[in-house]
């Protein structure tokens, strides 16, 4: 039984509880313990790439340091949190000046220098458990379901920092879909933006973006679309002109593992 530090992030506590509960339940079913650090903070939602922005990076560092102190890799689920934390860690590792400024500011017992390994939940499934192994745990395969993976932007880019998969030709969610018995649908817009936070200010643009993504998936014959991001979920569901069902990947994972009914949403 392996234990990981688990960072849910703000949205998983509120609007995206479903993403969280199924992630936890599925992990348990797969023999993984997720341990939440005592006092995590919101990651900030978006990474500030500016080199002279230190304060915005601190909360991510606190989380990373908590995982380092616990001596465990860090697991994230929400694409945005993953992106922020992964980019922060990348910059700590590659930008010495930033690393020293951050550490001067935080005054940790021991400086944080990028030691923590970060897995997105999907990476955990791929690299820690292995999709072949995952397939063995599937009791309720999603046979014949044509599922479109929606990566959006944050899971893959900037690929230098995220390093999850080939940013133009990703396979991780498709292989996940295969592992749980479904048939992946490849479509061009899977790695384009849903509109993101612009939904707050400029609904029209979010609608345009989300519809374009949904259309592309529909064009290739998708029956459902899955995502790892609460904001993508919101835009695709609420702002697109399509009725294609959208699910969190953790939910269909739980379904495939045959534990969905046991989970209290």
């Amino acid at each position, binding site marked *: 039984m392996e234990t990981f530090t688990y960072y849910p*992030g*703000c*949205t998983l506590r*509120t*609007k*995206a509880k479903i993403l969280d509960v199924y992630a936890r339940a599925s992990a348990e079913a797969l023999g993984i313990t997720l341990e939440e650090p005592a006092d995590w903070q*919101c990651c*900030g*939602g*978006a*990474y*500030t*790439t*500016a*080199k*002279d*922005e230190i304060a*915005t990076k601190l909360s991510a560092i606190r989380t990373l340091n908590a995982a380092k102190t616990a001596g465990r890799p860090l697991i994230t689920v*929400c694409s*945005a949190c993953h992106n922020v934390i992964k980019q922060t860690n990348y910059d700590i590792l590659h*930008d010495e000046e930033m690393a020293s400024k951050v550490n001067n500011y935080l005054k940790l017992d021991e400086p944080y220098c990028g030691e923590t390994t970060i897995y997105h939940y999907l990476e955990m499934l791929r690299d820690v458990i292995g999709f072949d192994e995952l397939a063995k745990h599937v009791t309720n395969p999603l046979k014949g379901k044509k599922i479109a993976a929606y990566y*959006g*932007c*944050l899971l*893959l*880019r*900037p*690929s230098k920092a995220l390093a999850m998969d080939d*940013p*133009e030709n990703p396979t991780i969610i498709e292989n996940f879909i295969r592992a749980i018995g479904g048939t992946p649908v490849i479509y061009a817009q899977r790695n*384009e*933006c849903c*509109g*993101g*936070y*612009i*939904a*707050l*200010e*400029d609904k029209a*643009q979010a609608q345009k*973006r989300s519809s374009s993504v949904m259309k592309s998936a529909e064009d290739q014959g998708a029956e459902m679309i899955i995502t790892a991001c*609460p*904001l993508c*979920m*919101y835009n695709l*569901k*609420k702002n697109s002109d399509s009725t294609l069902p959208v699910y969190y990947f953790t939910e269909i994972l739980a379904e495939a593992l045959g534990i969905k009914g046991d989970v209290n949403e």
Partner: protein
Amino acid sequence: MNKNLKEQVLRSSGVNVLKCMRCGKCSGTCPSYDEMEYHPHQFVYMVERGDIETLMNSKSIYKCLTCFACVDRCPRNVEPAKVVEAVRLAAVRQQGNNHMNPNQIPEMLDDDMPQQAIVTAFRKYIK
């Protein structure tokens, strides 16, 4: 041309705008192109020219979705999104220049809007 501003944007973004070969792929791939007055390749070029204030005064700086498509697809590794952000920061850091006011937020919300969107907007619009 404002030399100090240019310096600041270059330092803050960490981008070498001289690497740009003016292919326009960033603008070809940008999902917010039509919403922008100045487009990603123009950000890079105008920063090179030192024409920062024009950019700062444009609403274009709030239209970038930070999807990093331009960053990943730029053949020259220029990372235009980082330039856009540096210009945006240069703008919102000026006192009273917040793009959004917290009490504007509630009316923008609906029941399903995730927190994530709000915190991101705060990061982007307000200092």
